[in-house]
């Protein structure tokens, strides 16, 4: 990954203690963030979590209440948008309807007073990058949504910014087109090597595209990491809940290694060094389902509540003794064959590898309840 290879280079973006308040409302609590050169970095979170605020702060459309923003080690938080080496792809595309595609793409070059001999070539190059070489003379309104989106990307990239900001650029498109453009955008990112900062509320989009991502909640960064780090090692109940699906169990950690205990003393697998009360998180696909007498010692006994066949997987809801909510297990591939016999009311045992369970600190849970 280029992000880590380029550690000696200055970071593409650095946020230090950046805060944004609107009157009494805190949109962004002090955040620290470093995005390396060449990363495809996603800001992920539910609406109102501060991800678009963060993007607007980097783009210069709003000023931080406190803190410093650096782009390639140059402090920019006092600079207006047109003096920053960032370009933005807006959710609404914001193409200029009175200009042709070529003039739209060339607008930034014109503003930078690039001679037309040079800009003509760069416009063609940018249009080629997004596969719209033959659309230069069209007006934006004569293009489909996906094509407009690609014009917006070309228009932003033609200026060769240090960072490209993308504000939910696929939000207005239907699912199939979204998927295709996700692949195209990652390809474009690989081709140009520019740092991308991508805002989305769609966890699947963030997972599939980003090299690293930050999960935001309530104006705060919950966790920063690669998609797999975030998925397998969430550090809070919010992250575990927001990314993918999870089962949560209230447990007490004790002296015995590889096992934690439920309230009624039943042991379940988990590797943990911590002690005290905690929440155990385990993903549905990590749960094994078997006949009670085939199960290892530390497993949960329960009764199947519902079995849903979903094509690539079969999901089983199991109501277990000592656990308030039914646990969800997913069966894939070969396991699925066995799943046919998993009819409701059948007695089964559930267990998982101790390494697949993640212990989450208790306070994050209480904060969410509040």
């Amino acid at each position, binding site marked *: 990954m280029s992000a880590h290879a380029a550690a000696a280079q200055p970071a593409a973006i650095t946020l230090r203690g950046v805060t944004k308040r609107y009157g009494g409302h805190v949109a962004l609590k002090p955040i620290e963030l470093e995005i390396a050169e060449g990363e495809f970095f996603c800001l992920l979170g539910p609406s109102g979590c501060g991800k678009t605020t963060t993007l607007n702060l980097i783009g210069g459309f709003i000023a931080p209440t406190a803190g410093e923003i650096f782009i390639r080690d140059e402090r920019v938080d006092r600079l207006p*948008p047109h003096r920053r080496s960032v*370009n933005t792809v807006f959710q*609404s595309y*914001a193409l*200029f309807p*009175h200009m042709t595609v070529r003039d739209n793409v060339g*607008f*930034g070059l014109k503003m930078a007073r690039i001679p037309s001999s040079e800009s003509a070539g760069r416009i063609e190059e940018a249009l080629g990058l997004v596969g719209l070489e033959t659309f230069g003379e069209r007006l934006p309104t004569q293009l489909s949504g996906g094509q407009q989106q690609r014009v917006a990307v070309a*228009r932003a990239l033609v200026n060769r910014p240090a960072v490209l900001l993308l504000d939910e650029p696929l939000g207005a498109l239907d699912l199939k087109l979204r998927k295709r453009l996700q692949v195209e955008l990652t390809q474009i990112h690989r081709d140009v090597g520019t740092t991308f900062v991508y805002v989305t509320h769609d966890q699947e989009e963030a997972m599939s595209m980003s090299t690293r991502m930050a999960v935001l909640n309530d104006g705060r960064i919950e966790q920063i990491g690669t998609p797999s780090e975030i998925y397998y090692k969430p550090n809070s109940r919010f992250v575990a809940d927001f990314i993918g699906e999870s089962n949560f169990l209230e447990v007490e950690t004790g002296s015995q290694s590889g096992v934690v205990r439920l309230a009624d003393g039943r042991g379940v697998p988990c590797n943990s060094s911590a002690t005290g009360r905690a929440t155990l998180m385990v993903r549905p696909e990590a749960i094994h389902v078997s006949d009670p007498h085939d199960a290892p010692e530390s497993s949960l006994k329960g009764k199947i509540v519902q079995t849903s066949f979903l094509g690539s997987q079969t999901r089983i809801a199991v109501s277990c003794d000592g656990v308030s909510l039914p646990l969800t297990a997913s069966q894939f591939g070969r396991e699925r064959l066995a799943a046919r016999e998993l009819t409701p009311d059948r007695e089964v045992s559930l267990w998982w590898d101790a390494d697949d369970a993640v212990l989450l600190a208790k306070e994050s849970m209480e904060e969410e309840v509040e």
Partner: protein
Amino acid sequence: MANAEVTPSVPDPPGGRKTARGLSLGRLGQYGGFLPAIVLFGLFFAAPLGLIVAYSFWQVVDYNVVHDWTLDNYRYFFSVSTYAKTFWATIWVSVAATALAIGIAFPFAYWLVRYIPKRLQKVFLILVILPFWTSYLLRVYAWLNILGPEGAINRFLHWIHLTSQPVSFFLYDRPAVILVLAYLYFPFAALTLYASLERFDWDQFKAAMDLGATPFTAVRKILLPQIRPGITTSVIFVFIPILGEYLTPQLVGGAKGVMIGNLIANFFVGAQYTRGAAAALLITALIVVLLIVFRRSLEVRDAYAP
């Protein structure tokens, strides 16, 4: 009735059977709906206009209109230097007043749309049209009081000891006419500009700045070309009525502030109907030329092609 089978969605007219007579009546009924408009338009627009055109080519002999066709009325108008001068003055006073009205209305509408919450925008718009609740005459007289020798401006200048005698510069000349006309037509300009600015996609403005445009360039290159139809509409709403103004020039302009509206009024008061008609038609011709020039700007299709 083979047609009915192909397009079953078209219902038969009540009564069902279509005889030849029924068909032609139906055809007539189609256009019959225009009849009130045609009558209204003919009676109150085409006929009077035709009459004025005819009058402008006739002559007055001994206070009677004689139906002798001639170009004398037009020739006369341009042969009297005061009239010709007034004609050109009318144009530049109207241009200046329109420019002033729009020059104030545009920043106002821009500020309203961009910086004022939606709910409060309505309040400001009501404030803009509030003057319409009082009579035109009253508003002009109010300006007489502000600009006059005993008016607010002179009293203020006296109070700060800048002048010892009342200054009449503010009244009874063209600057006063331009100022009052701009005031009177500001609401029209503000409302039409607000309507087009309100629909503008301000993300484009953000995008332009993001691409390196200064706010001023963004207004010039992105905003103005797109609200051109709105600007043209407000120019038409303001400029054309101002061309025909005669009360304001008379009340605040005095002898030095005369516009062509006053000339036309004087011609008719003096029973010089044919000369008055010719002067009125000159203004009309000017407006027609302007509308032809602006015709292209009004085509919204350029900016928002389907």
